[in-house]
C-alpha cells in the first residue's frame, strides 16, 4: 500500500470518521455529549483491553531480551524529547519557561488512544507487532514529566520553590495515576493468565474493542472541538505550528533509534507513533499538581486539539510509511 492509499484508507476508517463526527458536532455547538462517567468507563475499558491483550501476547511469545533495549530506548525518548520541545517553544513562541516546560512534558509522554488507533491500523494492514510494546508505552508515560520538572525548577522563583512539597510525594501522586495503574495491572493479569484468561474475556476485550474505540473517538472529537473553540483564542500560530511539527521531529528521532532496535515492521511503526504522540490524560493531571502555574488551556488545547487530530488523521499512516523506510 502506498503512503497515499494508506492515508486515504485511514481517513475513511470508522475510527477517524467518528472522531470527525464529534469534532464537527462540537464545532457546530450541537448539544451532543458523552456523559463524563461513560468517557471514564471507555478509557478504563481501553486500558484494560489493550493491557490485557499485550500481556497475553507476551505470555505467548515469551519475553525476548530485546525488550530491555526497547524499554531503555522508550525511556530515553520520553526523557529527551521534552528538551527539544522546550528549546523550540522558547525560541519560537512567547510562552513562559514554566508553560513551555509543561507543554514539552506532554510531547515526551505518550497518548494511549493514539497508540490504540495505530494498533488498529496494524490489524487492518495485517502487520504483527510485539505485545510488550504496551509495557513500553506504560514506562514512557512518566520520564517526560521528570524532565519537565527539572526544566521548570530552574525557571521557578525560589519563593514558589519553597512552597513545593517534596519531589517524593509528588512522584507518588503522579506515578499512581489511575490510567497507568490500570494499563500495567491489566498487562500483568494478561501475562499471568495467558490464553486461558483470554479465552474467558475475549468477547469483552477483543470483539467489542473496535466499537468502543469508535465511541471513545467520538468523545475525543467532541472534546477536541471544544478545545479548539476555547483554546484557539489563547494560542499563537507559532504554538499551533509546534503542535504540528513537533510530532514529526519526535517521529524522526524515534525512527533513527529504531534502526538500532530490530523490532518488527509493525512494532517499529508503533514505537514511532508512541514517540510522536502527546499525552492528554496522565500528564495534564500531573502538571496541575507539579506546575500549577502553567496554563492548562495551552497544553490541553495543543495536545488534544492540535496534535491528536493530526496524528490520528495524517500522522499514523505517515509513521507506518516511515517504519517501512526504517525496516526496508
Amino acid at each position, binding site marked *: 500500500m502506498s503512503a497515499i492509499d494508506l492515508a486515504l484508507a485511514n481517513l475513511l476508517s470508522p475510527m477517524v470518521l467518528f472522531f470527525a463526527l464529534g469534532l464537527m458536532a462540537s464545532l457546530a455547538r450541537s448539544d451532543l455529549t458523552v456523559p463524563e462517567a461513560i468517557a471514564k468507563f471507555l478509557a478504563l475499558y481501553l486500558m484494560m483491553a489493550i493491557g490485557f491483550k499485550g500481556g497475553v501476547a507476551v505470555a505467548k511469545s515469551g519475553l525476548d531480551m530485546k525488550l530491555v533495549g526497547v524499554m531503555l530506548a522508550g525511556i530515553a525518548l520520553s526523557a529527551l524529547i521534552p528538551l527539544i520541545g522546550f528549546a523550540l517553544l522558547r525560541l519560537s513562541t512567547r510562552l513562559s519557561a514554566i508553560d513551555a516546560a509543561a507543554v514539552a512534558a506532554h510531547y515526551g509522554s505518550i497518548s494511549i488512544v493514539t497508540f490504540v488507533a495505530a494498533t488498529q491500523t496494524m490489524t487492518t494492514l495485517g502487520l504483527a507487532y510485539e505485545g510488550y510494546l504496551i509495557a513500553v508505552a506504560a514506562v514512557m508515560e512518566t520520564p517526560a514529566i521528570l524532565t519537565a520538572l527539572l526544566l521548570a525548577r530552574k525557571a521557578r522563583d525560589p519563593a514558589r520553590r519553597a512552597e513545593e512539597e517534596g519531589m517524593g510525594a509528588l512522584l507518588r501522586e503522579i506515578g499512581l495515576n489511575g490510567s497507568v495503574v490500570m494499563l500495567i495491572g491489566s498487562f500483568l493479569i494478561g501475562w499471568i493468565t495467558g490464553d486461558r484468561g483470554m479465552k474467558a474475556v475475549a468477547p469483552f476485550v477483543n470483539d467489542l474493542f473496535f466499537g468502543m474505540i469508535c465511541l471513545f473517538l467520538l468523545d475525543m472529537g467532541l472534546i477536541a472541538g471544544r478545545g479548539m473553540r*476555547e483554546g484557539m483564542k*489563547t494560542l499563537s500560530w507559532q504554538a499551533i505550528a509546534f503542535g504540528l511539527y513537533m510530532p514529526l521531529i519526535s517521529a524522526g528521532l524515534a525512527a533513527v533509534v529504531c534502526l538500532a532496535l530490530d523490532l518488527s515492521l509493525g512494532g517499529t511503526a508503533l514505537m514511532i507513533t508512541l514517540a510522536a504522540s502527546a499525552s*492528554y490524560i496522565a500528564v495534564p*493531571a500531573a502538571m496541575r499538581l507539579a506546575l*500549577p502555574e502553567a496554563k492548562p488551556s495551552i497544553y490541553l488545547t495543543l495536545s488534544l486539539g492540535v496534535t491528536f487530530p493530526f496524528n490520528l488523521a495524517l500522522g499514523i499512516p505517515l509513521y507506518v510509511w516511515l517504519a517501512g523506510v526504517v525496516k526496508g
Partner: protein
Amino acid sequence: MQTFLKKRIAIVIEQPALNRVLDKLDQLAVTGYTVYPVIAGRGREGSWRADGMVSDAGRMVSVVCVCDPAKVEAIIEPIYKIVSRQVGIITISDCEVIRPDHF
C-alpha cells in the same frame, strides 16, 4: 428551636488538587466536610465542562466545610495557600445549625 451561628466555607478547586485540600482539612481537624460535583464553569482561566472529560485536569469540584466562626481564620489561611496556587476560589458565608457541638 434554638440555632447557633456557624460559618460555611465553600471552596471550588480543580479536581487534581482535591486530595491536597482534603488532607489539609483532615490535618486541621475540622469536624467534617462535604464534596459536591461541578459540571461546568468559567473563571479567569477560561471556561470548562466536565462531560466527555477523561483527564481530571481542567475540571472542578466544590468542597463545603461548616465550622465555628472562631476556627475560620485557622482553616482559611492554609487552605488559601493551596487554592491560590491552583485554579479555584473560596467563599465564606454565615449559617445556623441546631447541634453546635457537631461543628
